């Protein structure tokens, strides 16, 4: 089902990145490296730029200064197709996970396989396995609007990992779900990390971070006044 990521494979790297809009600067001199198999938490108050930093990582936004390197390629040199192909190697989980409401949960999870032309019988088996792994087997044929918040988060995670991406970026993945479901989701992410996937989770749920640190060697980063700093000491 989920394939192990080769050690030393490509990572996402931000060097002295700045991001501004209008007259304001949201991120200043941000440097971050996500090696294969790493586990990072990104914290900070609302509006600190956590989502923006994640968007810079999956090339939804382009840095106004500095360098973003994705799998060894300079983000600025990537054309639209290059960006799309890079995203096929990045799994993204949003707080307000979006689905195609006219497709079933199983088809939504298989969507990254479909768009990358890998939607064959063997990969469909992966979808079945992922549905079981995320506890959504019974909901396979349901439409996304019929899912609960927790089920949507798990379906989003399943969709993010179905192509066995090298990096998983999650933006407040536990924002809409209860503690029990948060732990379950965390457990899934820890399992993925053990397979060598680089994980970056933006969250302000400190309990979740503490819980994770008891299972995995996670580095905690804090965004403050647009700058990134180590923030794990108090956890």
């Amino acid at each position, binding site marked *: 089902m989920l394939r192990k990521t080769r050690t030393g494979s490509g990572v996402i790297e931000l060097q002295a990145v700045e991001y501004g809009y209008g007259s304001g600067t949201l991120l200043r001199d941000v440097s971050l490296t996500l090696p294969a198999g790493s586990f990072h938490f990104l914290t900070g108050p609302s509006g600190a730029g956590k989502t923006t930093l994640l968007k810079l990582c999956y090339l939804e936004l382009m840095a106004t200064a500095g360098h973003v390197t994705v799998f060894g390629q300079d983000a600025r040199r990537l054309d639209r*197709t290059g960006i*799309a192909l890079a995203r096929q190697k*990045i799994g*993204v989980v949003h707080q307000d996970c*979006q689905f195609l409401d006219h497709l079933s949960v199983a088809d939504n999870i298989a*969507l*990254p396989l479909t768009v*990358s032309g890998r939607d064959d019988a063997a990969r469909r088996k992966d979808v079945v396995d992922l549905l079981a792994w995320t506890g959504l087997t019974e909901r396979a044929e349901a439409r996304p609007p019929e899912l609960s918040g927790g089920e949507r988060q798990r379906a989003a995670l399943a969709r993010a990992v179905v192509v066995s991406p090298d990096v998983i970026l999650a933006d407040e993945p536990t924002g809409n779900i209860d503690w029990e479901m948060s732990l379950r989701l965390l457990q899934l992410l820890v399992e993925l990390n053990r397979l060598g996937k680089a994980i970056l989770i933006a969250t302000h749920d400190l309990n979740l971070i503490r819980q994770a640190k008891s299972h995995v060697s996670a580095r905690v980063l804090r965004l403050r006044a647009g700058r990134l700093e180590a923030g794990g000491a108090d956890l």
Partner: protein
Amino acid sequence: MTSPASEIALIKSDVRADKVVPPTGHTAHLTVLASAAMAFLAVFAIALSFAVNRLADRWEAELAGTATVRVSAPAGQIEAQTQAALRALGQTPGVTDARALTDEEQRGLLEPWFGPDLPVDALPLPRLIEFREVAPGFDATGLRLRLEAEAPGAVLDDHTRWRAPLVRAAERLRTLGVLSVGIIGIVVAALITLAASAALASNRQVIEVLRLIGATDTYIARAFVRRFTLRAMLGALIGTAAGMAAVAVLPATQEAGGFLTGLGLQGPEWAAPLVLPAIIGLLAFVATRAAAFRALRELR
């Protein structure tokens, strides 16, 4: 700029890829309806063009087949010059049935303007000689020179002056027919562009999700391009069939009806409207492709 492979990818069948865009009811019906209506009109424009072609050919053939020589001379010389002109015509290759019109025939020609009591004998009217041209035609310049020498009052009129404006009119009508087909094509492209743009705008969230998971622009565009191309072709098929059926039941060509009853298609002309579904499909492909990539460029 996309590669030829990308162009092929845009129309390649992929059942799962086609499913990623939700069905869009009203734009689907609009596209089929617009294509059908335009194809129906295009069939009539094509029939009109062919009819005008036939009319132009007929005018040209009818006018090119006859010519006249007008002999104007003093009363004492007119008969001698008429005979000289008839002799010259009789010896000219490509000329046959040359004869001088009788006084009665000349009166008949003038009657619409001067009434039935015209005293032809008392008027210094020129004598008209009518003849027919036969293959391979006659040398008009040579005949003029000979008439000038043998019958100085004879003037050859090979109807060139009259034929030219008629042929020009027919050519303009033919151009109008072609222009109509072109305008129909532009309208088809515009309508499909509007429908495709509306579909793209209403599926903005779908496009965002597809982009998030790494779909390329070509992949996203394909779902729209294929859908609209096939719909336009379906509509064009329906419209072409209906248009051809309507042309088929037009009244047959009748002498009394003239141009209006000659509007139908004849023989191999029936094959021409059959290319409409393919042409409209191609137009839909180009229009939707342009609309899709423009919309995707704007949706950063």
